[in-house]
């Protein structure tokens, strides 16, 4: 339990300090936001968070900056992230259900193997995976970014879901067994509906991590038309001269919007998900 909340005036200095700290934390982000609306010369001369002249030119210039409209990159990112969310939810919840509720030979071995993959740095599997995807002719497609999610390679989510499933009372599925339900019905009609919080957390983190992923697209996507947003931003740095920070900032801000929106909408799930990952064992 936390101590009682102090709502008196005595807490005021602390609030002032916390607000200043918050401002300092957010200042770079807010400054990038405001700079994205400033004309180029003002970015380098004005520290204030309020533009003297508001212009949308940076956004117009940025949107068409790479020869292909940025909308294309957003669409690509949305496809990859959307499929990653679906893949992770389906494959990880199936595996988690098996580990949490079903009995089968060698279960302990597989569970230990799954936990082992949590620690494995992806660099070790990188090159053989690249060779495999190349042999399959999947270079410069979204498949290498998406298919692993449908094969539950992100073991962190399995782990999170197993923890949650174990907390659901067994009496529920025992009653269902007596009523003649098989494992599939129990998974689909009992476990999944009761697991909304953990499924939501897994969906949000899958989305954000895939949206922000830079390394995967860097390896596998070579054609500009296939670029995801982070890769397009990288291409943009190379394509523009040193003084074109305005358009670069404007597109960077746009790239953060979906993540920020997810944060605003699902703040509770995100923070609880983070806290839970560190406390449950």
């Amino acid at each position, binding site marked *: 339990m936390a101590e009682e909340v102090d709502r008196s005036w005595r*807490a005021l200095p602390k609030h002032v300090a916390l607000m200043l700290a918050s401002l300092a934390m957010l200042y770079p982000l807010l400054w990038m936001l405001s700079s994205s609306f400033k004309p180029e010369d003002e970015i380098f001369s004005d520290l204030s968070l309020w533009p003297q002249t508001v212009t949308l030119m940076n956004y117009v210039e940025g949107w068409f900056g790479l020869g292909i409209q940025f909308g294309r990159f957003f669409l690509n990112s949305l496809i990859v992230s959307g499929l990653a969310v679906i893949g992770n939810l389906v494959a990880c919840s199936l595996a988690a259900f098996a580990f949490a509720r079903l009995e089968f030979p060698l279960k302990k071995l597989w569970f230990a193997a799954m936990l082992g993959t949590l620690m494995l740095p992806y660099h*070790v599997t990188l090159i*053989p*995976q690249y060779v495999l995807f190349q042999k399959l002719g999947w270079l410069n497609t979204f498949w290498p970014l998406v298919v692993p999610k449908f094969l539950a390679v992100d073991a962190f989510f399995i782990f999170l879901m197993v923890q949650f499933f174990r907390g659901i009372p067994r009496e529920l599925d025992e009653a269902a067994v007596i009523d003649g339900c098989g494992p599939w019905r129990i998974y689909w009609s009992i476990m999944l509906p009761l697991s909304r919080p953990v499924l939501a957390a897994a969906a949000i983190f899958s989305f954000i991590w895939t949206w922000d992923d830079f390394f995967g697209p860097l390896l596998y996507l070579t054609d500009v038309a296939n670029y995801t947003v982070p890769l397009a*931003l990288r291409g943009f740095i190379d394509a523009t001269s040193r003084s074109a920070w305005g358009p670069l900032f404007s597109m960077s801000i746009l790239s953060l919007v979906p993540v*920020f929106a997810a944060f605003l909408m699902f*703040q509770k799930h995100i923070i609880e998900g983070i*806290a839970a990952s*560190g406390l449950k064992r």
Partner: protein
Amino acid sequence: MTAFRDTAVAAPGLSARRRRFGGWRQGLPGYLFLAPWLAGFFLLTLGPTLVSLYLSFTDFDLLRSPQWIGGANYERIFTSDPKFWTSVGVTLSYVALSVPLKLGFALAVAMWLNRGIAGLGIYRAIFYLPSLLGGSVAVAILWKQVFGYDGLVNQLLWLVFGVNGPSWISNPATSLYTLVLLSVWQFGSPMIIFLAGLRQIPRDLYEAASIDGATRRQQLTRITLPLLAPVIFFNLVLQTIEAFKAFTPAFIISGGTGGPVDSVLFYTLYLYQQGFAYFRMGYASALAWILLLTIAAFTALAFLSQRYWVYYEDDPR
């Protein structure tokens, strides 16, 4: 439905072995549910891990088939590759600086926020936001500008002190520190875990301690830190592994080169260059295995050290 643990009443005729394993036939639903993960485990994790071990002993450029060269890659890495040692030095400095600073900051702010303050949720959310956005290319771009020659930091220096600052990014003496700062800025995620841990410490311990006349400092060192040790341990392991794997910000601010003068040549960046810029895939596989063994050794060391400083409440000791 003998597939279910609690309803699996062992029939008298079943052998002990069959009961223990659930039997292969009864195990079928389990394997069906596990099938996608099993396929991924063998095709994308275990298989590639073993293949990369093999490749690390070969000369492989993706065009011709791998040529077995024994331990030559490892020998070259350790004896005649100065860039390898540079990247090791950069990465170890980054880990040694960013992890303690980040965790110390996270813990201090968590304890500050935990002393009963209105609007905790809002402050927590604001402090967490950089963690959520900080790994993106967008923020790396922002960092590149903020610490650039005509960036935000130098504008501030000019305004407040009237000095012309250097370009922090392109100065090899400071570029790594800008990335350490970027990492510390993202202290929000361990902070949330610390906050959740702090809330699990029973308040009556503090009340009893202050009745006995314990100072705040004593309460910190005798109650808070020992009871928080498991959470500190978790954050330490997690953040260290993350720091070893850092890639994106170094790639973006250096334009993929690791420069200036290799000052931000992170280990992962060097591995990427060897594998995907020079297509020395055998060499890069050896680098990957060295990374794996380093992380494994560190994790094992951390777990072994636990008995000296981490106390678990359910531990019978």
